[in-house]
């Protein structure tokens, strides 16, 4: 098991290298001279040269790449051209917001999807099932921002029940943190819930027809235990798989949601970076998001060994 884990973790390296390579190659596409762009339109030649040296652009490409990657590994994502602060610091400062958002969205999604899928699988082809299918198809097609905007309209403007912007750190006040998180998390979570319900319902349907479910029923364990223990446990793998796939969507969605709800997360950071042509910030957030996706997928992979006894290699 340990060897398996190690192999997978080591497998991260080539992918991440490729990710950095992609970022680096994209950077080379900057129209014009990046140093000049960064220094500003009417900067003097000396200023431009200064920027060039500061950005390491006077070295051969391979070397640039190498030293850049070495820096990344050390945690050095460069310095912001706007503020002069280390990009890693900026990312760390804003990460909690994005993490809160994605986590709560996922949890909300689960809280909705699990009961909905169980209900639909338990009593197939009745009203519950039909409406679930309809709701999920609908939910999957609605874009995140539309849901967000509608929610703001209804809850923040019309009824003025929930705040439409701002973020309160959890450590400061859990209550206010949750109140501010509700609308954004529901916005993101709706898509998660829809996708998750769809997949869960399909796998639960398969599971419910399995022979071991009959064994469980015949043992007189009662519906709750039969569904809750025997069925759900075997649905864990597909659920985790879907969640792993959702992380990409979620991270992309946070950009929009953070804008709608004025949250200072990584999404708004990268957008600001674009407006300011702040390349280190742009690349930094890009790499971090790719890294997150890769790590989450790795975690999902490893969890299979934990969740499905048949996958475990060796004792």
């Amino acid at each position, binding site marked *: 098991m340990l060897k398996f884990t190690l192999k997978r973790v080591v497998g991260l390296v080539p992918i991440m290298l490729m990710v950095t390579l992609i970022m680096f190659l994209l950077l080379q596409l900057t129209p014009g001279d990046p140093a000049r762009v960064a220094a500003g339109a009417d900067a003097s030649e000396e200023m431009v040269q200064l920027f060039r040296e500061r950005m390491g652009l006077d070295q051969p490409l391979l070397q640039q790449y190498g030293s850049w990657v070495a820096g990344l590994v050390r945690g050095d994502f460069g310095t912001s051209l706007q503020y002069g602060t280390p990009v890693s610091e900026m990312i760390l400062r804003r990460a909690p917001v994005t993490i809160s958002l994605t986590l709560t969205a996922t949890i909300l999604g689960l809280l909705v999807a699990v009961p909905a899928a169980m209900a639909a699988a338990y009593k197939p082809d009745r009203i519950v099932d039909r409406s679930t299918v309809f709701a999920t198809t609908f939910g999957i097609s609605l874009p995140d921002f539309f849901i967000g905007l509608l929610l703001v309209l209804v809850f923040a403007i019309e009824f003025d029940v929930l705040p439409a912007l701002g973020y309160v750190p959890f450590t400061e006040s859990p209550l206010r943190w949750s109140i501010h998180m509700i609308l954004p998390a529901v916005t993101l979570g709706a898509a998660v819930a829809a996708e998750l319900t769809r997949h869960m319902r399909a796998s639960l349907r398969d599971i419910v027809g399995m022979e*071991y479910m009959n*064994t469980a029923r*015949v043992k*007189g*364990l*009662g519906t709750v235990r039969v569904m809750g223990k025997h069925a759900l*446990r075997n649905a864990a793998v597909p659920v985790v798989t879907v969640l792993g796939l959702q992380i990409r969507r979620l991270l992309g969605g946070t950009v929009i949601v953070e804008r709608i709800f004025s949250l200072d997360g990584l999404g708004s950071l990268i957008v600001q970076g674009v407006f300011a042509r702040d390349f280190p910030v742009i690349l930094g957030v890009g790499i971090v998001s790719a890294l997150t996706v890769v790590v989450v997928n790795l975690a999902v992979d490893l969890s299979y060994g934990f969740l499905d006894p048949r996958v475990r290699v060796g004792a």
Partner: protein
Amino acid sequence: MTPSPAENAQPDLPLLRTESLSVSFVNRGTRTAVVSDVSFDVAAGECLAIVGESGSGKSVTAKAILGLLRGTNADVSGRILFAGRDLLRLSGRALDRVRGAEIGAVFQEPMTSLNPSFTVGNQVAESARRHLGMGRREAWDRAVEMLDRVGIANARQRAKAYPHEFSGGMRQRVMLAAALVTEPRLLVADEPTTALDVTIQARVLNLTRQLCDEMGSAALFITHDLGVVADIADRVHVMYAGEMVESATVYDLFESPRHPYTAGLLSCSPGLDAERGHLPVIRGSVPQPGEWPDGCRFHPRCPHAVEVVCTEGPVAIEATATGSVRCRRHAELRLDGVQSEVPVWAVRTPAGGH
């Protein structure tokens, strides 16, 4: 659950009695009868076998008894009396108190009948926790004890293993352990050895019979294999096309069958009779539900069929000296049983209720 004194005081009430059990499946308005008017008894402690080919409705009968047809498109009518209570009329919760505690079950496919995500010990222990009120520790110990009893070596270690780490025969023993851990009064076994190697079959069967005897449990065996019947059953019912066509003790059935179908089955089964050369077959094939012929359902394939007598009107069950039979001509026919010098069964007296 201990039987109430009232039930014990009626020695003539069998442990399990089905009365006119009929099952039909309803699919988009069309109703197809699969089991019609099946009645039989299982006395406490006895081992009854229901024999039939696929399509005879025997598995559906077992499912009906176990309550596995609830929530499906099956329409079940008649009565299934277990210790006096009609299982069909019980609420879900009440049924769940009976299942697992007083009725245990073993199914055909050991590869898929155990949940792959839980340890073997867990799956045996959960019945004990649920029905015997045991705590985790106690139930686990009980499970290990049971696993040992069914012949799993090194039970304490193996209890922590997962189903995929066991062979088919071993898994079936686990199923047996899970079914018997609560010492139920009735064990329903639906083709428990069909999917196993021939060499393992005998062992698992004997184990099953032995444990049932030890616990005083009655057993209802569903099978298509007359060899199984010969091995362990006390009494036999033969099913054909959704009906009971004959019932008798094992000895009587094998020696002098009353129904042509039974005789046909006996002559077709390899190994029961050392004399035969090549294997005879019953001509024709089993009619599927929905295609049952009028009159005696076996008549198109019966070498003794006679016009009118066998072709018209539903045939009723009649009592015989040895049991019962559903054949209008049974009194006239002299059918061949198994001619063998060596008895094919171990001489047993029907196990009395303990």
